[in-house]
């Protein structure tokens, strides 16, 4: 069983479209995250949720909206996609805050905006 699973693995879409990426963890963790990894491999946190509540919201355009229906799921919806949104998006989870314990990452979603 995959601990943190996200779908889809690849997403190619046109500028201006709206898309969603789904993430689920079966580890019973309280905290979930979205990270963006750009072409230079830099990993930057976007959002962090603890028990369905938003606790970290970095400087991310408001076209990006996370939603956590329950603590096992954290989805990412992106409106009006732009070329610069092309990246790999990783979902992750940890038992408590990431600084307390290890984070488990999903396989990533490679988003290409054309």
């Amino acid at each position, binding site marked *: 069983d995959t601990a943190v699973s996200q779908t889809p693995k690849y997403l190619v879409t046109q500028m201006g479209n709206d898309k969603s990426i789904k993430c689920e963890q079966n580890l019973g963790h309280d905290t979930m995250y979205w990270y963006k990894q750009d072409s230079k491999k830099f*990993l930057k946190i976007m959002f962090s949720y603890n028990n369905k509540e938003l606790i970290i919201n970095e400087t991310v355009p408001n076209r990006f909206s996370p939603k956590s229906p329950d603590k096992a799921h954290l989805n990412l919806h992106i409106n009006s996609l732009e070329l610069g949104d092309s990246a790999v998006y990783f979902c992750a989870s940890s038992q408590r805050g990431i*600084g307390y314990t290890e*984070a488990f990452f999903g396989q990533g979603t490679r988003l290409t905006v054309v």
Partner: protein
Amino acid sequence: GQQVMQIPQYQHVQEGEDFTTYCNSSTTLSNIQWYKQRPGGHPVFLIQLVKSGEVKKQKRLTFQFGEAKKNSSLHITATQTTDVGTYFCAGGGYQKVTFGIGTKLQVIP
């Protein structure tokens, strides 16, 4: 905001040579974590260091946390082709960590 610098960005070594990557922060860190990302893969947790001056070993990997808790290093002894990947440090507080830029390691057989 918190900045975590990591050097070098790239390193090519012959198989069997040693490898070290360094991580430096402008501020004192509560803890430091290390992750490995294989090409095309996702970051995988290696270790967490919490105490000042802490040293931990995992087989050929040695991790250190500086006395001032502002720097850390990962040393691999006698690299193997399976060590290929990008090594990230991540440091900060307990709710949020900042990832370094990563060191991409290539091992030449």
